[in-house]
Every structure is written in C-alpha cells, then in structure tokens.
C-alpha cells in the first residue's frame, strides 16, 4: 500500500508551483528535489546549522523543520530568488550577494545560501546595522570555512551597497 500523496501549491520566488508529495516530505526536500531549487542546502536536518534557511513570508525559517504540506499558505523565497532583475537572463547580484563576493564571505559555498537569505531579511528590518547587530543577525548560522569574520564584513558592506544603489 502506497503512502498518501498530497497535491499542494507552493509559492516560491514569486511563482506558484504544483507538487505532489507525501505529508512527511520536508520543505527542504520539496524545494530541492521536487522543484529543482537546489540552492537551498541541507547541512544537519535538525535545525541547527541554518544552511537550509529560506524566507517564509519574508522571515528566515529553517526549511528542514517544516513540512512542504505545511507551507501551502506561505510565500517562500530561496537563494535563487535573491538576484535582482537587470534585463539579463540571470539578473544582477543583490546587495548581499555582491557584498559576499567583495568581502570573501564564502569559501565552499555550502552554508552561504542560508546566510544570504537570513541577512537579506535582517537588513530589510535593520538597513544600517552596527557591527554587533551584524553579528547578532547571523548568530544562528554555522559556517565551517570562513571563521565568520568576512561574513560580518559582508553584512556591513551589503548595507553600504544597498545604500549606494538606492
């Protein structure tokens, strides 16, 4: 006997996508394997590392701690949805993404999507953070490569870039 499947609609990066999933399908898996949005990474599947962080109704949330079926009424943004339209097919890097490139805020890149989504929301709420606030903003995400120093710099630089662009 097969497992019951649920037909659900997920709103991701501004598009409504239909998928058929069992109830136990984690949102992280649905995004990655059903919708092919593999930019969201899975580092621990118990909500500690933050690599899978996506924006749910604008707020950073661990996608490994949500079921896809539970995300039906939400608007979801993944790392693939962070670039800004500039007429090119790929779009331009957002201020946060650009800052990471400038400040060497990433190495292996695996934790990076979770930082990018988290900081995107963080800077929306607090566009000009102090260094301490920048550290607090990323305090729930693990990175094993960078030692965080350049990520903190990236947060502060992103704030500047956003200011320059506006």
């Amino acid at each position, binding site marked *: 006997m097969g497992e019951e499947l649920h037909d659900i609609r997920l709103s991701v990066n501004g598009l409504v996508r239909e998928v058929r999933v069992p109830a136990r399908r984690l949102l992280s898996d649905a995004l990655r394997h059903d919708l092919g949005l593999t930019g*969201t990474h*899975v580092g621990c599947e*118990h909500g500690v590392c933050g690599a899978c962080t996506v924006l749910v109704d604008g707020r950073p949330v661990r996608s490994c701690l949500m079921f896809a079926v539970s995300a039906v009424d939400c608007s979801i943004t993944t790392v693939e949805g962070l670039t800004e339209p500039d007429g090119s097919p790929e779009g331009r890097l957002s201020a946060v993404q650009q800052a990471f490139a400038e400040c060497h805020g990433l190495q292996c890149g695996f*934790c990076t999507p979770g930082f990018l989504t988290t900081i995107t929301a963080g800077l929306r709420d607090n566009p000009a953070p102090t260094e301490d606030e920048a550290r607090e903003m990323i305090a729930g995400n693990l990175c*094993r490569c960078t030692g*965080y120093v350049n990520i*903190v710099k990236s947060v502060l630089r992103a704030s500047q870039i956003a200011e320059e662009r506006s």
Partner: protein
Amino acid sequence: MTTKMFGEPVQRVEDQRFLRGQGHYADDLLVGQQVLQAAVLRSPHAHARIVDIDVSEVLDVEGVHLVWTYDDLTGPMAPTMGEPLPLLIPHPQLTHGRTQYALAKDEVNYVGEAIAFVVADDRYLAEDAVGRIRVTYDFLPPVVGIPAARAAEHLVHDDVPGNVAARLEQANGDARAAIAAAPHTLSLDLEVERSASTPLEGRGTVARWDPDTARLTVWTSTQTSTGVRAAVAAKLGMDLGQVEVVTPDVGGGFGVKINHPWPEELLVPLAARTLRRPVKFIEDRREHFVSAAHERGQVHHVEVGYDDDGRVLGLDVQFWHDNGAYTPYGIVLPIITSTQLLGPYKPGAYRVVFESLYTNTVMCTPYRGAGRPQGCFVMERTMDAIAAALGKDRLEVRSANFIQPDEFPYDHGLIFQDGRQLEYDSGDYPASLAKLRELIGWDEFPAFREEMAREGRRVGIGLACYVEGTGVGPYEGAHVHIETSGKVKIATGLTTQGQGHATAFAQIAADALGVPFESVEVVTGDTRRMPYAVGTFASRAAVMSGSAIHLAALRAREKVLRIAAEALEAAEDDLEIVDGVISVKGTPGGTASIDLGTVAVLSNPLRYAFDEASKAATQFTVGDPGKPPVAEDDEPGLEGKDFYSPDRSTFANGMHAVIVETDPDTAEITILKYAVVHDCGRLINPMIVEGQILGGIAQGVGGALYERMAYDESGQLVNASFMDFLMPYVTEIPAHIDIDHLETPSPLNPLGIKGAGEAGVIPSAAVFASAISDAEGFAITAMPISPSELFGLRRTHASAEPVETKERS
C-alpha cells in the same frame, strides 16, 4: 602591460555560481532524473559479532530496489568486493594494519559501521526499509579510550595483541643521555581529545552506469578523484578506462574526504551498474558523526632536560595515538605528530616513540592540521613549563631554542610522513616572533592585566609557534589548452573544497601565459580532464598544482612563441605576450602582432575549416609542402602539460597569540584579542590566504574550547548532533583577528610558495592552553577545556597545590 595577477587579492570566480544558488554539490546532481537513493544500516553497537541478518521484511516493500549485506558482495559481479577495503598507506612499522569491509562481514567494531545497504525510490523509503532489517548480535566487550586500549584487557581485533597497530621510534642523538646530563629536567603528561573535520556537507556519492558504452561515471564529494577512480575500478573489476570520477562542488572537506574509498563510494557505483539506474547516497548529519572519521585523540608523556637559558638539551616524547577501529590511512597522523612536534626549535637531542592503538570507535584519518595540533600543543606546553620553572619570559625561552635564519636548510635527522628527510627549507622565526610580540602587545600586557585586576577581572596571554610541512608529494600535474577562441582551459587533477583554486590557479596561469585573467578557466578533480593526480591534503594544492600549472603554462607559452615567431617572421626571444596578443617586444599592438586564438588555429593543421578563422590552418593555405604538416617532434594543438614533483615538502610556519578573559565566578572563557603572524612564502592571493587563516582559527577555537567527541564507555557517541557537538557560531569567534605576514620564499618550487590551508588551526590548543594557564596560575594539560572543566581544575588546585609539572632538580 598585462597586470600581474600573482599576489593580488582577486575576487573569486567561483563565487558567482555559489551566490546564485547554482553550485553543484553531490546532492544537487541528477535532480529530476529519477535517481534512486541509498541508505545504510549501521551498527548500533561498538563491538559485536553478527550472528544473523534478516532482510526478509524489506524485500517486498514497494519502492525498494535492492538490499545488500556482506554475503551479496562475494559473488562474481565484483570479485574483490568481499575483501577488506584498501590499506591506503602501508608502512613497515604498521605491523597490524586492519581495514573494514564495505559491509561488515561477521563483526562490527564501532557504532556506525556499515552492515546493510538499501536502494529505494527515495531516501525516505530507503530509511523505512533500513528500519525493517533485523540483526542478531553477539556482544563483545568494547574498548573505548586510550587507557582502555593500552590496558588491553579486551582486544578490538582478536589477532592484534595489545591493541597495538604500530609502534614507531625515531631519534636524533641520545636524548635520554642528554636529559640525564642536563642541569634541569621536567616531565609532563598531556592529552588532546578527539574532534572531527565536520564539513557542512557530509559525504555523498552519485553514480550512473551507461549500459550502451559499459562505462561508469561517479560523482563523489572527495578530496581525491583519482584515488576513488582507481579503487572503484579495482573493486568493481573494471578497466580504469571504464570509470570516470568527477568531483562536483564540495561543501567542505577539512581532511575527512581524503580517506577513500568509503563503503558507499563502492556500493553506489556497484548498485548503479547492477540496477542500470543512477543511484545516489547522501550521508546525513548523524551518519557523518558515526561513519566518517575523527582525529586528534592522543596522550603524551614528555621528559625534557634544559639549561639555565631554557635551551632544550634533550627531549624524550612517548605518546599513544587512538586510531579508532581501523587503519585505512596508515600511521601518517602519529608520524606527523612525532616529527612536526619540533616546530621551529632545535633540541640538542630528540627521541620519540609512539604506539598507534585500536579502539572500538570511529576510525581516525586526517582532520585539518593532521597530527600537528597535538604536536604543537605538546611542544608549546613544554616551552611554557620550562619558562615557568626558570621564571623566564615565555618568548625568551622560545627564542633560545629557535632555528636561526642562517641555519636553513635545517635537517632534523628524522623521516617525515612522506618517507623523506625532515628538512626545513626556509623561515625566519626570530622575525616572526618580533612581529607577533608587537601585534599582540606582549610587552604592554602586564599593565593591562593589572588594570583588569583592579576591575576584578582575570586575563591571561599565551602564544604558540608551529612549523608545518606543506606540499607533500608525490606529484601533481596540469594540462593547459589554448582554444582557437584564445580562451585558456586548464585542468589539474586534485580537487577543490572551497579554497578558491579556480581563482588562484587562474592567477598563476594568466601571469605565465600573458593572458587576461578572465580568459582562463580552471577545472579540478575531473579524471576525464586530468587522469593523473594525487589529491588535496597537507596544504599541498597551491604548492603542487600551482607549480604544475605554472610549468605547464610555460610549456604552452614556448609553443605559442615558436608558432608566433614563424608567423611573424621574428625571433622567439624578441616576442612577448601581453593580454593574449603576441608581438615584438616594445611594440604592443603593432602590425607585427598575432593573437593567441590565431596561434591556436595555426597550431593544428586542418583539412576541414570550421569557421572563417580556421581557414588559415587548412592544407592549401599553410605549411611547407616539403615537410610533414606536423613535425616529428611536435604534436597538433596548442597545449602544455607538465608535472611537478619536488624532492620534499616545503615548510610554512606561523605564530599565534591570544589574550583571554576567564570569569572568576562562572569560569567562562572569553577571547579578547587574537593575533597571527604567518609565513607561507609568497602569497598568490592574499585575500584567499587570509580567508584560510581566519577559517582555521575558528576551527581551532572550536577544537580548543567547544568541540569534542563524547564517547561513553559502551562506545556510543553521545553527542552525534549539531545540538551537542559544539561547532562555534559567530558568537564564539573573536570579532577581530590581527594578521601579519612574513613572506620567506620557498627555494623548492618555481613560485616560492608554501601551503596555507591548515595553518590557522594548528596552534589553537597550544595557544589557548598557554593563555588560560597564564590567567589561572596553573598549567592546563588537557584540551579542549570547557568552563565546567576549568571550574573543576580551580577546585583541584585550590585544595592542593599541584602537580602538572614536576621540577626534579
């Protein structure tokens, strides 16, 4: 003039895809292509005989395609799968090397050892199936921890007496006699616990079998694609030419992914070939804790004799290394500890002896630093103990023992991990120490300490020095191909886990060839592009592949100039390449110039033109009709290939210092200031080097103050999650780290570079132990240390003045 790229903090080219979420890590591959997923039944017991495995409840489960146990691996489909996994690095003293089977044969020796392998439609169903397998065990007493292994009341492997895998002794001079004759002596007992690489991405392997061509493609999150390729071909009974291994983007390695082949790296390809479907295994976090590898656990006993200046006259070190249940990586780790322990110092005489011991725990293979952090901890604790005993400044004692700049090359009279002489190539330790003294504010610290004491606060300062053999052999190679578009494609065989190789290597190639950085593209870890390679470990990528790329690019350049000289009717020596255009020196862009793309066209005599430009190379257009189109000593195409294989390692060095605060009430430990002086020879990309150092320091902070593998006496790893294995967040890492560089070039390679990948993590245990000891007034002898442990030590030391170091004279 082409801008010189070497030495510039160029932004990384790989970041564009990572930042857009378009990296391709193992679990991102073949998404949407109905790839099957594997899960593994792992032993819940540390030591047991397997009496029976019952898979009957799994076979008829919908969505399950395959269930294997050991018995399924002994058939004709793969003749050697039933044998133990390879012992990768044999050594004459590894008298009792043991490796596990891809699936446990009749005994399990650690919690996490693979017993059964399931392939299903997806990972959820595969885990359901694993849960239905029933195993009957006959329990055996587990051996956990170095004391239990040494006591050998129980054995991990029946046929390994005393649990001793290897015993190795090395000496330079008569250390015991030197100690006996020394005016002062000390003995120290020191201990470092287990930790692990813990990349954010665990292990992962994907395989696709193409039945039409009988070829296998394996993508695996590894630090050695050529190593995996050779192992897969051998184990699956295939010709090497039938197997390709491609390393996708790798979400961190830090050493653990150099071990190979993991059981899954063989089982996944075998399942793909058997099922004729793509198969994927993605290790989850819990599995990574119990079925990958750990490192670091060692216990040391030190005897040292020294003079009134603190100069070490004799040093005798005995230590015991916990290698876990198996030894696939040989005894490289304790060999590194035993040799690199010496750091920048030159003891009068040295003897070291170690035993590598089996325990019923996850095996130990290199984790960033690879045996060096333990050695550094031991040596630096010894230096601090000597300073304390003599009442001397810790810097003074170190200075008295340094190898001096005019003593290089310096031969320690020992054999290093690569079987070669331990001979340092270059360095300037007094200069490094002078910089560090300044950077941390060593001389101002006493005043700071007093100022803090007035506020009721307790602070301490510590330092640690290390030397790191980097860029070990045997070799790496590079292939440079200049396309008719003028673009330069470079392949090197070692793999990348976030070090920015695509950027740093392109910088080297752009300089060597005289082409724009943007026109260079680097591929790593793809056996289709470069089948000869070793791997990424021991801070060797920049030294080995960097040098190989430089050499291969120079070969390509030679050919460019030869063809261009003919085309321009000029002498090769008169030509230069600037921004991809070859012209007579001093007349850039003049009429007598030719671009690289055209040279590439000319390099390959054609019968068939494929575009306008290529007409220039067709047979009625070009060439001397009296000669063969391709000369006897030449070959078509604009390529360069070369290999770099040095006599021995190059030795980077560095010194770290830290100021910590310890809370007098709660014993919490806070980092107030951290400073680094680092010397890895010439810097290819200082931004990347600093990134490596910063990341290493964070891992070092973790290793010193937070992370440990907590095994209980039954061999259960009780903290196998990110909840309880305490990797630092940003909140645990100092906000500012001061870094200064010294650039003492290596004479061993054409670019003067040394490795930088592991540097940041090596002195951490040592530097924090030094600073905490300084704050507390008693010696820290075991790392890592938590507030709870510091609190316990305070009580011990308050009740009885002790004992870590025994002055015997």
